[in-house]
């Protein structure tokens, strides 16, 4: 089980409380598809992903981004039980979606950059460190049931 200090939990929940999940999720997923275009391989049925403008405006990207980040919220709500929280999703990503877990790390790092751009100087080094730890734990949990 991952250990979170009281300060770490505080930094996570206070940042999360100010996040607009729909906007932030849409932005994070759009950036993943733009910065690492090979990740588009999972989204053949999303329609027009031909340019950054197309990706950012794509309603399926927005909707899916919101879904993904909402799920991330489950980790924030269950910091002491992240592995179990993602057990089912881990199996899904392995057996049905066939997603290389490296993609979870890529998205995690992108999320951090989105948070930095949004919170600017309030996204302090300590804040970043805690969130890097969180995205790493989530990525690990999502990969845990892979076989």
């Amino acid at each position: 089980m991952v250990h979170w200090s009281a300060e770490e939990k505080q930094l996570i929940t206070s940042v999360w409380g100010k996040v607009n999940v729909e906007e932030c999720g849409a932005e994070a997923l759009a950036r993943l598809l733009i910065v690492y275009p090979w990740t588009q391989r999972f989204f053949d049925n999303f329609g027009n992903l031909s340019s950054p403008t197309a990706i950012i405006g794509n309603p399926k990207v927005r909707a899916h981004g919101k879904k993904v980040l909402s799920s991330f919220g489950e980790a924030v709500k269950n910091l002491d039980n992240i592995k179990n929280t993602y057990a089912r999703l881990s199996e899904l990503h392995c057996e049905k979606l066939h997603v290389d877990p490296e993609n979870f790390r890529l998205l995690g790092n992108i999320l951090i950059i989105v948070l930095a751009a949004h919170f600017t100087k309030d996204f302090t080094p300590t804040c970043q460190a805690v969130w890097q730890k969180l995205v790493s734990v989530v990525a690990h949990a999502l990969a845990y049931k892979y076989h």
Partner: protein
Amino acid sequence: MLTAEDKKLIQQAWEKAASHQEEFGAEALIRMFTAYPQTKTYFPHFDLSAGSDQIRGHGKKVFGALSNAVKNVDNLSQALSELSNLHAYNLRVDPVNFKLLSQCIQVVLAAHMGKDYSPEVHAAFDKFLSAVSAVLAEKYR
């Protein structure tokens, strides 16, 4: 790799960082040491406490080298040749750490540029820092 548009975006964005080299460089290092404590193992000879002169000095050096890379983006291998030698034969920093510092550099840029760190600029910088990292590691073996 880097398109003409990428290069333009990088140079434009870097102009905004130009007058903050020491500050941004130090911040990137501090973020790296805080988020990835294992990176401190390369600096046993440094005072890593807050406000350290050594961190400021080293941050300025790192960003100075990146400025040079931005100016010579069409010929990174040649422009960074000495640094490439240094990293391969002296410093021998494991290349996995280049990714960690790249992430922190991007966080610094994003934190200071806010929404100006657009997806297009983000993509261009990610590619640029990848290219720089590859050059730094190219003589390792």
